[in-house]
Every structure is written in structure tokens, then in C-alpha cells.
């Protein structure tokens, strides 16, 4: 049994990403005659015309769509207050660089991202995710940034060693490029003598950043 035309019409208007012109609606609902479609649109409009309805049939340039009624606008704007906010892509990337490269200066982050990050740094600071760790004894004595206690708390990390390692990131986030075999000192192998390598032994100072390949598969059962 095909669904009620009015229900079908309402669902189409609700689910469509853009307003639906009359001709498109007619094509989507071939079971309705042009007169039938016009009547259904009128009926839907009348149904929403009750004070108990929060929606209305809105006819805009491109066609028909559902929208909230002007009478409830003041309530709808309150949504912004309770809606969770998300970090923008630039903020997310900056935070990631700071988290994994701290202590780091603004200029160093900018060298990686290739853009000015003044605004983003401010946002991250206001969000309580980063903090100033000190100053670097470089010309201009730039400030060094790192993640804050709030950052650790947000993710429930006890300390920075809880951050997923590069190998773990690779295992979790699909690599955008094929894995290459590069000679590499593994990142964080608790218990192994990683410290002995130290900063001086940083691999690939000459070349692009190698990504550690995932370790051998764990016990397969």
C-alpha cells in the first residue's frame, strides 16, 4: 500500500536538502494529479496554521520547504546557547600540533600550518585547552605553548603519555597515503630504551616525516 499523499509530501519537504519546486514535487509524487498536489499543499499549509504548530509551509524562490514559524523564533534562537560548540578545522589542527610538539612557539606552529594562527591561539586559550609554558631564548623571546590541565581533563588523560602515539594514530585513522617502509626509530615503546635516542637522534631530520608502520598484528587468537 502506498503511503498517504499528505504524509509523503510532508516527509519529502522535511528530508529534502533544498526547497522543492512544484514540478519536482509532481515528479516525486506521480500518483498525484497537478490539482491533487495543489490541494495537498494547501491542506498541509492549513494544518500548520494552528497556534500549536511550530512549523509552516514556506514558499521561497526555489520552491516549497518546511520552516519554523516566526512566532517561535525567540525560542529557536535559544538553541545556540545549549548547542555544543565544536572546534574549527584550523583550531583542531593547531591544537593537535601543540599537543604533539609542545613546547612549541607560535612561529613553529605557523611554519607547519602555513598560515597565521593568532585568532586560533586566542580561541584555544579562551577554551582553556592550551597555556603558556615559558619563553624561548630566541630573538624576540617568543612564548612557548603547551596543552593545559584542562586539555588533559577534557580527554581524561592522566598525563601526556596517554595521548595516542603516532603508531596508534596510524592504526586508527586511515592513512591518506600508502604505508612506506622507512627506517625509523619507533615512537614510544614504554620500557624500551627510547630515551637513549634523545632529541639528537631524531630520525629523518633530512627528509619528510616518516610514519611508523603499525606493529605486528597482536595475538590473533
Amino acid at each position, binding site marked *: 500500500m502506498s503511503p498517504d499523499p499528505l504524509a509523503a509530501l510532508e516527509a519529502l519537504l*522535511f*528530508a*529534502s*536538502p*533544498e526547497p522543492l519546486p512544484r514540478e519536482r514535487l509532481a515528479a516525486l509524487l506521480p500518483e498525484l494529479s497537478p490539482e491533487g498536489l495543489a490541494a495537498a499543499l494547501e491542506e498541509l499549509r492549513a494544518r500548520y496554521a494552528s497556534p500549536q504548530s511550530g512549523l509552516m509551509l514556506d514558499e521561497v524562490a526555489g520552491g516549497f*520547504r518546511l520552516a519554523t514559524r516566526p512566532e517561535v523564533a525567540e525560542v*529557536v534562537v535559544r*538553541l*545556540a*546557547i*545549549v*548547542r*555544543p*560548540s*565544536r*572546534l574549527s578545522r584550523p583550531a*583542531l*589542527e593547531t*591544537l*593537535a600540533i601543540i*599537543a*604533539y*610538539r*609542545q*613546547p612549541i612557539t607560535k612561529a613553529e606552529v605557523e611554519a*607547519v600550518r*602555513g598560515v597565521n594562527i593568532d585568532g586560533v591561539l586566542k580561541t584555544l586559550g579562551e577554551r582553556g585547552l592550551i597555556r603558556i*609554558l*615559558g*619563553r*624561548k*631564548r630566541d630573538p624576540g*623571546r617568543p612564548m*612557548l605553548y*603547551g596543552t593545559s590541565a584542562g586539555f588533559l581533563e*577534557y*580527554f581524561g588523560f592522566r598525563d*601526556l*603519555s596517554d*595521548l595516542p602515539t*603516532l603508531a596508534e*594514530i596510524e592504526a*586508527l*585513522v586511515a592513512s*591518506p*597515503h600508502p604505508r612506506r617502509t622507512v627506517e625509523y626509530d619507533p*615512537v*614510544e615503546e614504554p620500557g624500551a*630504551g627510547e*630515551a637513549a635516542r*634523545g*632529541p639528537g637522534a631524531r*630520525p629523518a*631530520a*633530512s*627528509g*619528510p*616525516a616518516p*610514519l611508523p608502520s603499525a606493529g605486528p598484528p597482536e595475538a*590473533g587468537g
Partner: protein
Amino acid sequence: MAYQVKLEQFEGPLDLLLHLIRVHEIEITDIPIATITEEYFRVLTAMQELDLEVAGEFLVMAATLIYIKSKMLLPPAPGEEALAEEEDPRRPLVDMLLEYQRFKTAAGDLAGLEERRREVFGRGAAVQVPPGRGPLELSLFDLLAAFQEVLKRAEGRPDVEVTPRPFRVRERMVELLDRLAQERPLRFFALFAPDADRRTVIVTFVALLELLRQGALKVRQAAPFEEILIYPAEDA
């Protein structure tokens, strides 16, 4: 031959065993191990004949089956008759199969729910609501993906250093700067707790060297053999 069509559908050795148990109408708790082993090897051979890559997991299971089979050929030691039930060498395998089967069933349930939810559509139009000011929503996956993206982009620019460094050292660097904010100067030997293990000492020392190299701090020694003091760079 009958297996050919299905071969690639096996999701692992357990899946294959469950299939064999089903088609041969075997009681899962009383597997005739010789028969099932033979069948299992026939499928592996078929896979090889078809040039399908036989994953390591299938070979591990093959070894397990042979092991169980050999265990079952051994007569029980005298006096162990009563314990025979408990020591059935098939038991661990049966437990694994039962466990896996339950999750296969659960996966089937999820597939059904997925299908039902595909009949439900949310609002299609883009959100017109102003950006949220509510609590921050940040997923660790998003953060990781962002970092991966950064690494990927940096690969094209060899002068940019995004190479991974040992993380413990990095962490200790941050700790050192933190402590310097509290007490300055820091006494060198105070950096090393008396009970610190060798690894911790090394990590701390490397962190100190790295901060010196970066110029974020400096050390002073009034005279040879006197205490080494550590200052933040801005106290120069």
C-alpha cells in the same frame, strides 16, 4: 568444489569452522575432531588451488586442530577417567566457537536494526541555527585525524620538522618548564628523585638538554664542583 563459491566469505578460521559444523550437522559441543580437521584442510587446499591468499590465522587454527587431534589420541593416564569430561582437549576451541557464534548472532541483530534505520531520515536542509555556544565538543578521533592531516601536508615540505620525537622526553620538558615557573632557580640534583630509575633519569636529562638547545632555559655554575642551577631563559 561446493566450497568455491563461499570461500571468500569466510571471515576467519572460526567462521569457517562454524560453517563446517553447520553443513555437517555436527553437535558443536561434541565435535568429531578427526572429521572436522580433515574437512578444514580440504578447504585450505581448495583456497590454495584457487590462489586465494590463506591468511596466517587459518594456519594457526590448522595447527590447533592437529594439536587437539593428537591430544585426543593419547589414552588418559590411569585414575584420570573421572576427570575426562573436564579435560576434554576440545573444550577451549568449543568455548571460542560458542563465543564467536553469539557475536555473529548479535552482528545479525545489528544488521537488522541498521536496515530498519535506513528507512528513517532526518531533516535534509542545512542547519540555519547560529554556531553553538554550549559546552565544547571535541572528539579524540577528530584530533587524531587533524594531526594526521598535518603530517601528510608537511611531507611535501621537507624543511618543516614534524618528525615524531620520543614522547616521554617531550612530557618531561613541559614538566621542567612548569617547575621553573614555581621555583627558580632549580637545583640540578633536585631534578632527580633519589628513587628515580635509570630510565627516568635519562629522560629527564635529555629533556633538560633539549630545553637548553632550544634556549628555553639556561644553567649556571658559580664554580667548578658547585651546584648547578637552572633558570628560565627570561631571567637572563
